[in-house]
């Protein structure tokens, strides 16, 4: 920086990079303005060691990516571990003006007219049960969709849904060990197919849940509906896919096996046990192939009554939330969220009970196994167990909502070994690669529901808190408090070197027929009332320079950002037309609108690009239909 200034003093600006020099000045200006009062607060209780454990020096990189759900914001947030710094936001189910998501034709179409979604459980693609760094899938609890984010460019590439028959897609998006399927299940049973109506009084018989696998194309990641299984009207909650000895199985918890309606808080908690549904998805695949299905809502649905041998119900403490398969695939862990124990169920015992037909009864033709014959152990973890993650030392970590703590216990001996309090009310938790066949240990993040009193007061709308816990030693230790936008449900912590994103879209890869790469090709063409503009955005102008249309014209603008350098984004903001496009280097985006308002409308670059960024502006002239002109 100093050098730039001294050179500027000497008016010695020469040759290459004079533009870069001005960028340097602008950046310097921003940095200077951004310096607020210095934080002088030291870590309490001599916690310098904790500070060091989470410190990532300027210019240094984090060890892990943390992808956490943004709940009803519709976004996925990306942070680094151990710094816990928020790095980026990936919009999925809602418009996001910062990246122009949902404003251009393509992403607008992908959103399908919905203004929001409820992102719950991010799930990274796997190969042989380990993260492969290709895609991240997330479910939409509100509008029954599943989205695929490509980790090559951290962009949402596909939104599948609303998926027929699935209602309240909470039980997703957990992947099978080779990303054959993404699990998806109904939380809110409804009469099927969707659109049909039955009285609430007939809930127990006329309403149905669905558990399903959304099929993933191994090469492209393209999602399609896959198989669906018709289930009793339970509320399917969370799931996980089996691995190793349990590969080929999928598990979902459910609450309200009472099939109750009304005040569920009371009506759905009358029985001592609800269920974990165990689905043999390889058999489900086979049943679909053999045509043992019926058509519901245009989807091939398996009815377990007609096709047995696919679904079984394992009793679990009432109102369970998560079900988590251990890294070796031998056990699945489930807990009633009002209890103080968590149960490890043995896959081996389950298979034995199934083959011995050791059933306690059935629900709508689905065999119910006996709790005692599938249970391996009960662990006294503490009050309100929800979810379990794992490390590389054979330990499991269970979040305790009511107790507001994380319990650490040993697989095999089933002993509680440690507990750490959390501020406050932990929901999900995530450990480093903690749901794969190969967890890393080291770090665990508690995704808490409340954060009061932990940060500067920001009024009634409080953020959530995410606390970083060092799990590398014998004793768990909270080492960092981070605050996150509503609302982190689940997360994936992935080793940084597993993901290799691009920074620009290579020109050679841009196959968009409307892309142009030379200012000379920029043009505006008219065909009747349709106006098509092929536009170039490059430091620091839009070409063509001026757009002139008639009121009522349908205007399509294809903007190509012909930059091929990191972070040279250009935005296209059209005043009072609610148009906000951001084009990454090497990308082409299109926007179509009807120029229904006459007048002169400035458009400008919204995304800072260069020293003359402010000058990157021009006008859209919409000539009034009646031929009126401006009065002097």
């Amino acid at each position, binding site marked *: *920086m100093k*050098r*730039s200034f001294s*050179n500027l003093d000497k008016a*010695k*600006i*020469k*040759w*290459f*990079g*004079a*533009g*870069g*020099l*001005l*960028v*340097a000045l602008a*950046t310097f200006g921003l940095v200077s303005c951004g310096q607020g009062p210095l934080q002088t607060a030291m870590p309490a209780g001599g916690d310098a060691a904790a500070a060091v454990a989470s410190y990532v020096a300027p210019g240094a990189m984090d060890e892990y990516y943390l992808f956490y759900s943004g709940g009803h914001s519709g976004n996925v947030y990306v942070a680094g571990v151990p710094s816990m710094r928020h790095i980026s936001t990936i919009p999925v189910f809602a418009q996001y003006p910062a990246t122009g998501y949902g404003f251009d034709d393509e992403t607008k179409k992908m959103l399908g007219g919905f203004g929001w979604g409820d992102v719950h459980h991010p799930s990274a693609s796997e190969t042989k049960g380990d993260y492969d760094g290709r895609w991240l899938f997330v479910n939409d609890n509100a509008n029954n969709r599943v989205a695929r984010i490509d980790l090559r460019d951290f962009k949402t590439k596909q939104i599948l849904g609303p998926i027929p028959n699935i209602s309240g897609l909470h039980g997703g998006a957990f992947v099978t060990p080779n990303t054959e399927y993404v699990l998806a299940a109904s939380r809110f049973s409804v009469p099927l197919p969707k659109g049909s109506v039955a009285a609430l009084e007939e809930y127990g018989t006329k309403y149905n849940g669905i558990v399903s696998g959304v099929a993933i194309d191994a090469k492209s990641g393209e999602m399609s509906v896959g198989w669906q299984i018709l289930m009793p009207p339970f509320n399917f909650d969370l799931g996980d896919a089996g691995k190793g000895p349990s590969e080929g199985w999928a598990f979902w918890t459910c609450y309200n096996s009472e099939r109750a309606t009304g005040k569920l808080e009371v009506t759905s908690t009358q029985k001592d046990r609800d269920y974990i549904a165990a689905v043999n998805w390889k058999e489900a695949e086979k049943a679909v192939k053999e045509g043992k299905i019926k058509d519901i809502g245009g989807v091939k649905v398996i009815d377990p009554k007609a096709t047995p041998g696919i679904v079984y119900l394992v009793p679990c403490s009432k109102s369970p939330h998560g079900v988590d398969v251990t890294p070796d695939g031998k056990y699945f862990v489930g807990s009633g969220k009002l209890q103080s124990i968590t149960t490890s169920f043995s896959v081996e015992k389950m298979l034995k009970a199934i083959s011995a037909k050791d059933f306690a009864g059935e629900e709508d033709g689905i065999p119910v196994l006996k709790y005692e014959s599938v249970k391996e152990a009960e662990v006294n973890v503490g009050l309100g167990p929800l979810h379990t993650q794992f490390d590389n030392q054979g330990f499991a970590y269970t979040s305790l909502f009511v107790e507001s703590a994380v319990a650490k216990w040993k697989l095999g001996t089933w002993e509680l070994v440690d507990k750490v309090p959390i501020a406050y009310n932990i929901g999900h938790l995530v450990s480093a690669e903690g749901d794969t066949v190969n967890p890393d240990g080291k770090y665990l993040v508690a995704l808490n529901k409340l954060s009061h009193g932990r940060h500067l007061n920001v009024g009634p709308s409080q953020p959530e808190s995410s606390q970083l816990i060092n799990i590398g030693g014998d004793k768990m230790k909270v080492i960092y408090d981070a605050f996150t936008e509503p609302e982190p449900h689940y997360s994936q912590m992935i080793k940084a070197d597993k993901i290799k994103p*691009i*920074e*620009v879209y*290579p*020109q050679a890869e841009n196959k968009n027929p409307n892309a142009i790469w030379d200012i000379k090709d920029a043009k505006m063409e008219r065909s009747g009332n349709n106006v098509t503009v092929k536009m170039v955005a*490059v*430091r620091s102008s839009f070409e063509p320079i001026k757009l002139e249309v008639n009121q009522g014209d349908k205007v399509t603008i294809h903007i190509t950002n012909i*930059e*091929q*350098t*990191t972070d*040279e984004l250009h935005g296209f903001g059209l005043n009072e037309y609610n148009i906000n496009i951001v084009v990454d280097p090497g990308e082409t985006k299109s926007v179509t609108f009807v120029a229904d308002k006459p007048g002169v409308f400035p458009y400008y670059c919204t995304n800072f690009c260069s*020293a*003359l960024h402010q000058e990157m502006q021009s006008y859209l002239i919409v000539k009034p239909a009646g031929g009126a002109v401006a009065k002097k």
Partner: protein
Amino acid sequence: MSTAQESINLPKVESKSWLKRFLLKEYEFFEHSLSLKSRVVILLAVVVLIPAFLFPLWRMSFFSNQYPDGLKLTIYAYQLDGAKTSNRDDLREINALNHYIGMRPLLESEFSEFIWLPFAIGGLMILALRAMVLGKMSKLVDVFVLFTWFGLYSFWSFYHRMYLYGHNLDPQAAIKVEPFTPPLLGTEIVGNFTVYSYPDIASFALIAFGLLMFLAIWLSRKNSEV
């Protein structure tokens, strides 16, 4: 010096003038057959020149706070090559920055050098092999003289291009700068950039070729029987 003195002290009894004798000596020199050593050295020189087709002639790099890894431009005998990484196309970037001072974009298609340079280098190699086969000093000197001319002209032509780029700036450019010649050799600070401009393998191959040709001449400075 000594030659000049000798010619001054030439005895007047000789019938031929010193100039004539000098020319005769030259004539005789050009008639020298090339020694085996010379011929081997010529072959070596031709081999040494092969990298000139493959490797860069010149490398330029530009470092600044915004580009801590440096923008890199590499000049080959046959192409102008900006570094291309997954996150940057350096030639495009250099042109994007230069447009602010009104400099024409550096375009490979505007350099005829990339067509005639490889042709000329190939020609030199053929002429050198011809001198080796024919074993005549005159042929060898031809190659050496042609090479020297070619080398100096190429360097001047490159410099001149840089001069033209730096002196034909668009008067309407956003940033007005004094016309200048971009640095051709060495390290220089321009604006907020530290610029490195240095020859590379192909240039060294050309220099080595010249030196070896001179060595070949030197080794046959006395007439050989072969």
